[in-house]
């Protein structure tokens, strides 16, 4: 073979790389177009909401030095070090944020929807049913149907009571059997409301956390200590309430829903000694903000004239842009979300389980099932406006539910995201390896036992991810809300599920058409940022959950 004059490697080796590089550049451009457009929108909206240019240059300088610089340096340090400090950093920062949002949601529910003592009565009555059910399970484990009946009937009687029936009158019972819930409400003395929250919210959470810690540290004593610490921490709430008179419930909810997950996570990090440096990040952020605030106050620099501040989040809309707020629409969105979750999670996951585990795939019935699956995929693509029309026709005209109420809005948007939930739950179930099911069946398990003990636990992270992503979409849907009559603007948060309500995206839509420019630029931007913040947190949670379980 003749030897070439040039070398076999290098530029003249004869293999052209140009086409490949050009293709890569075009694909990169395509990616960038999408990302850059979204970034431009975000920048626009954030600038409008926070108006950073109205602040003194000194203000910017102070926060640059105390917050931005340390945080960036720390982030670079994490990036260059090899241990999982970076992951610990963003989880430790994100977890309190998620916890705060959840706590905020719970507090909003207590403030607007369900008085604490009503919640207390409900929890006690449901707890009583639970105790009876558990006793029955221990006493007569095989009477499954009976136990199911007890669950349904018990819940109904305990929460709603029995209406007067001829049978009851014959038996000499009083006109109406009062429910346990009402009995609790009639009690002459109820404990302090914050104590009620401790009993019904903190105790179960503490028990769960204690179990989790006990298993992780392989020590029952550690679990008990953890649970005791949580309850003690929460009990500071009533103390504060008694001594100072501020709402103790806020403290209790914050401890239960924010401090507990963060503490459990930090305990895990410290015990495993992996990425402990990451714990510094939130401290640097909080410290930076605190030091910066002290400094700007001391040096007298004026902050920016923000549209999005605490008063925006807690006021009602108004004709004056400066006093406008998003609070009622926020509460409306939260309540809509509650209805959506209550409706789509059981129905969607149930449908997915049936289609995946129980439905035959052969024969005539099998073809019918395939038809159903194709149609569910089609339904996922139907425009949201059409779902709005469906909601109007079905819930308002046919069932005569009140127009624009929480329940109508929730059911309509719930129908919208139901196909998405079904499809993603089905994919999660499909991803469970068949060998696990075979092993379970080989052990003499029924299909129900296999689904409950093996398939569902394995598929649950995937189902949760799909559900959270679906809910993220639901919170921002506007077209169906327009058609079912959700209020353009509400002054008061809805007090019940049948009340007229507003919603965040609907409110933003209204502001976009207001004549005053401050509404269209400032207030609207603040609303968009609020909505996006909630959305971002939900999506980030879903992705973190999915990544964590994918790696396992």
């Amino acid at each position, binding site marked *: 073979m003749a030897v070439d004059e040039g070398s076999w490697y290098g530029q003249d080796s004869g293999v052209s790389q140009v086409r490949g590089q050009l293709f890569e550049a075009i694909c990169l451009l395509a990616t960038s177009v999408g990302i850059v457009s979204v970034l431009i929108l975000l920048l626009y909206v954030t600038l409008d909401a926070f108006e950073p240019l109205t602040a003194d240059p000194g203000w910017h300088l102070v926060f640059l030095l105390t917050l931005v610089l340390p945080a960036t340096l720390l982030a670079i340090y994490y990036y260059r070090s090899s241990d999982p400090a970076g992951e610990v950093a963003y989880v430790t920062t994100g977890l309190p944020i998620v916890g705060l949002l959840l706590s905020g949601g719970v507090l909003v529910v207590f403030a607007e929807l369900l008085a604490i003592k009503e919640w207390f009565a409900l929890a006690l009555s449901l707890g009583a049913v639970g105790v009876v059910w558990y006793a029955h399970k221990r006493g007569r*484990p*095989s009477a499954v149907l009976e136990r199911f009946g007890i669950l349904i009937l018990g819940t109904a009687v305990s929460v709603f009571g029995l209406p007067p029936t001829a049978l009851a009158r014959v038996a000499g019972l009083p006109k109406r059997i009062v429910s346990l819930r009402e009995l609790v409400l009639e009690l002459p003395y109820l404990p302090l409301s914050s104590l009620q929250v401790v009993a019904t919210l903190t105790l179960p959470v503490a028990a769960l956390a204690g179990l989790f810690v006990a*298993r992780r540290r*392989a020590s029952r004593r550690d679990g008990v200590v953890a649970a005791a610490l949580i309850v003690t921490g929460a009990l500071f709430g009533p103390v504060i309430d008694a001594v100072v008179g501020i709402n103790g419930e806020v403290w209790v909810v914050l401890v239960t829903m924010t401090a507990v997950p963060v503490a459990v996570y930090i305990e895990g990090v410290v015990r495993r000694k992996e990425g402990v440096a990451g714990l510094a990040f939130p401290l640097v952020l909080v410290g930076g903000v605190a030091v910066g605030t002290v400094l700007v106050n001391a040096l007298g620099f004026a902050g920016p004239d923000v549209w999005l501040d605490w008063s925006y989040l807690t006021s009602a809309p108004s004709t004056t842009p400066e006093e406008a707020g998003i609070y009622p629409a926020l509460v409306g969105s939260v309540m809509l979300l509650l209805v959506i979750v209550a409706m789509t999670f059981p129905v969607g996951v149930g449908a997915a389980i049936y289609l995946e585990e129980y439905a*035959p*795939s*052969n*024969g005539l019935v*099998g073809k019918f099932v395939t038809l159903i699956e194709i149609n569910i995929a089609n339904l996922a693509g139907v425009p949201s406006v059409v779902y709005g029309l469906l909601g109007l026709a079905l819930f308002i005209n046919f069932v005569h539910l009140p127009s624009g109420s929480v329940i109508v809005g929730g059911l309509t948007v719930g129908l919208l995201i139901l196909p998405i939930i079904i499809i993603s739950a089905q994919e999660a179930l499909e991803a469970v*390896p068949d*060998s*696990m*099911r*075979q*092993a*379970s*069946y*080989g*052990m*003499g*398990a*029924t299909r129900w*036992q296999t689904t409950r*003990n*093996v398939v569902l*636990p*394995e598929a649950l992270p995937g189902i949760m991810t799909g559900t959270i992503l679906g809910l993220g979409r639901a919170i921002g849907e506007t077209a169906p809300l327009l058609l079912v009559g959700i209020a353009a603007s509400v002054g008061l948060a809805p007090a019940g599920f049948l009340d007229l309500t507003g919603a965040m995206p609907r409110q933003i839509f209204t502001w976009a058409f207001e004549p005053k420019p401050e509404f269209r630029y400032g207030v609207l931007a603040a609303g968009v940022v609020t909505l996006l913040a909630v959305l971002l947190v939900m999506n980030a949670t879903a992705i973190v959950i999915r990544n964590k379980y994918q790696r396992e």
Partner: protein
Amino acid sequence: MTPDESTQSSASTGTQTTTTDGPLVDQQIDVDTNDARPSAETVIEARHIDVFYDDVQALDDVSIEIPEQQVTAMIGPSGCGKSTFLRSINRMNDLVDAARIEGELLFRGKNVYDEDVDPVALRRKIGMVFQHPNPFPKSIFDNVAYGLRVQDMDVDEEQVVEESLKKAALWDEVKDQLDSSALDLSGGQQQRLCIARAIAVDPEVILMDEPASALDPIATSKIEDLIDDLAEDYTVVIVTHNMQQAARISDKTAVFLTGGELVEFDDTEKIFENPEHQRVEDYITGKFG
């Protein structure tokens, strides 16, 4: 129910190896006749079994009587229906929509495909170990106790788990880490865990579908010793690709050949030393398949 006492025709000590005569000219396969078990009652009987997957026939007129408390091996080339037959015994093929079975399959005289037989109840008497170890993503203890809980068996869980792990020759290796995840074990340990899991519920028959094919030689030999011990208490039916393995551990061997046909079923020594059919002889000596 006493097993028939019949004298073994060739009472030999140690292993037999044939060299020049007979079909094993090019191969030496050691047939272990040391622990020849006395022949026993039939526990599983197949009568003219045909199995179809949609229109493809996987088993063709299979009739076999599997003796109790012995190791029966089923060998043959890939795709000849051995696994299909195994899965028909405990009705695991019910889970495959496309599968259709004709003929009778009797377990202790009762046709398992009768209307009044609940497959769940059947699988509690006939356990199964699969080719690839498939422990649940739970702790070792929960894996072994799974069958007990699922069948609502009123036993002392800790004691049964310990006994099963001891029988599966895994206890010493895992007794300090019963709460750790089963997925942290090595392949061989996971397979022994699956065996422990299968025997925890005290079945009568254990079906094994190529249990050692995914394991290294050392793990394989541990499993083989285990199978030998298991046959003291359970009936073992094992499907294997590995002829040497079949010759080492089984008392009786069934040879399936292409098309889902059971060509020959006899004592292991006879199959490997002096089979009746030429096709079996060809298969064993490696002339095809």
